[in-house]
């Protein structure tokens, strides 16, 4: 039992990061119905930005905030200059643009930051010395770093929910998500809402990227790829248009990943199952869930009128 709790606690930290990136995906999907393939790489670029600011002598938390601010502006600009005009041209255009952005941001990171391919050291916001943990009953340890990541994600999630549910902007965002045309007719500035969605999503992604880099103590060109895959899986599992789904999906995927990686090793000895096998198992679970509920656990099913 002790092991189970231990693995769940470890999984929650990574899972909360998946939730964060998944939330970013959901925010964009709700507004425009687009899947942003560049979400992970945009976050990666901003994380390198945070590293660069930090490298110039600023404290880490200020660097991360500045990077998130930059990503907020950048995300809005991308929506305004690329996504919006492309969406008018053809349904495939946005997919191609986000794939192009994926490639451009990844290689731009390699271009601007020397040593990005092999990895740059990245600090963490939370105490991470080997002795920094709570001792729970049954020999379970809960590292301060894992707690810190989880708490950060919870705070951001709560802030997002307040934004969605309690503010006028949030109301407008929900209206656009529900029916963009009606929202426009009712006087909601849909374009501004969509721009804000991209801006928010980019900023959320940046924080997610910095948390991943903090846990790994390192950021490299490949850091966000696997995280993005799992986050998009989490968003799909929860339902692409449901923020609650993204959070639940992310946390459960993190836990499943941790359990599937660790238990077989306990039972059959080490290295039987690698990390990517765990991801494979996670994807099979998602496939099964989607077969039963095609729009995810919490996604809204749209009834089509013929």
């Amino acid at each position: 039992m002790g092991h189970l709790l231990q693995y769940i606690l470890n999984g929650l930290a990574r899972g909360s990061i998946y939730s964060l990136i998944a939330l970013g995906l959901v925010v964009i999907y709700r507004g425009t119905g687009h899947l942003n393939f560049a979400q992970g790489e945009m976050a990666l670029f901003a994380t390198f930005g945070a590293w660069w600011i930090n490298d110039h002598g600023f404290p880490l938390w200020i660097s991360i905030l500045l990077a998130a601010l930059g990503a907020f502006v950048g995300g809005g600009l991308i929506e305004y200059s690329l996504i919006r005009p492309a969406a008018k041209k053809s349904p495939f255009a946005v997919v191609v643009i986000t794939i192009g952005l994926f490639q451009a941001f990844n290689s731009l990171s390699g271009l601007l930051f020397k040593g990005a391919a092999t990895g740059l050291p990245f600090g963490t916001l939370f105490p991470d010395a080997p002795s920094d943990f709570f001792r729970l009953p049954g020999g379970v340890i809960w590292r301060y770093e894992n707690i810190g990541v989880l708490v950060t994600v919870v705070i951001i999630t709560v802030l997002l929910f307040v934004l969605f549910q309690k503010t006028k902007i949030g109301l407008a965002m929900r209206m656009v998500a529900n029916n963009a045309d009606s929202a426009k007719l009712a006087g909601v500035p849909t374009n501004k809402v969509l721009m804000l969605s991209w801006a928010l999503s980019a900023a959320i992604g940046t924080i997610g990227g910095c948390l991943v880099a903090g846990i790994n103590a390192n950021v490299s060109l490949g850091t966000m790829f696997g995280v993005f895959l799992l986050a998009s899986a989490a968003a799909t599992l929860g339902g692409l248009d449901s923020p609650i789904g993204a959070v639940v999906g992310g946390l459960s995927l993190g836990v499943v990943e941790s359990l599937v990686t660790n238990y077989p090793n306990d039972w059959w000895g080490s290295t039987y199952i690698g990390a990517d096998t765990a991801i494979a198992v996670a994807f099979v679970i998602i496939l099964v869930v989607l077969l039963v509920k095609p729009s995810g656990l919490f996604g809204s099913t749209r009834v089509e009128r013929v």
Partner: protein
Amino acid sequence: MTMPIKIRESSPLHWALRVVGVSALAAIAVYFASNAAPSTLGKITEACTLAIAAVSLNLLLGFNGQISLGHSTFAGLAAFTAGYSVNAWHWNPWVSLGVACVLCFALGLLLGLPALRLKGPYLALVTLAVAFVWPTVARKFLQQTVKASTLKGMRLRPPTWTGLANNRVDRALFLFWLSLVLLVITYAIVRNLRKSRIGRSLVAVRDNETAAAVMGVNLPFTKTVTFGISAALAGVAGWLAAAQLATLDENSFSILTSIKYLLALFLGGAATLAGPVVGAFTYFFADDLLKTNAPKWDFLPGPLSKGPVASFLLGVLVIVFVFIAPLGLVGFVKAQGRKLAVVVPPPLRPAPKASDPTAHASPAPAGEVE
């Protein structure tokens, strides 16, 4: 504005244009075969392989509206099947092509089943998952069955009737022709499917599933079998890759390969017949030009590392391209060409007299009814 020239479909002029076009393409192929260096031929072979994969993806995505990010997996499965059966069991490579296609068809059918229930981004994600799982499967296979980190590709010998020797130059020439022939066959299969009743039902399903079902299209059958055929054709691309590559490893057919197929398709123009072929050649040679030339650019400022320049520019080019030609190169050329010349269908046959309301007033001259 001048009126475009009208060309009757299947008129002698139309046929003449078709013959000129096809013979021009054939002449270019013969020119390259007799003049180009083996390395250039190798590149064209690679581009043809990419084109086959893009054509297969076009059948599924362009004509049937089902997105797949898992086509790299089909190619990978076919390549590994070919590589392993030829090396370990000494199969005839041509037999392995057939077996690989059948395996891919079966896997495609299997993946087509969940696709029946999933739409748009959800389907994209599930196929993405398949593409992501493949390297793991491939690595386990390499570790446990091959007991090495790579699998040897099949070294295809030119058959004796071609008169080609089994050396590097002749093998390159043979692969060049082989890839062209396979590309033409794949293209012909997709073209004929598209022009037939089946093709029209595919497009009907893409445009409106409910309406298609009402018209009598069997939705589950059409969608799963399309997935299967598309997968089998992607298998041809994988088999061809196994014929070219010296070694195959777990990363030979990663998710990035799928993205490459997708970009090639969109660059050329999805849902057009020539689009994926044009797109694949454009993508491959743009990528190749940038990769060979970018490291030589000395005008780049010092701190920039030159390695990723090519891939960055390719990403930017893709984005710029979407704005110039949102419907792909072929869509763009078609739109421009329409201003110069249009192909119009042959004149309608005159309607039977009974249904002609003007027939009572003045009898129309009898038309030829064939």
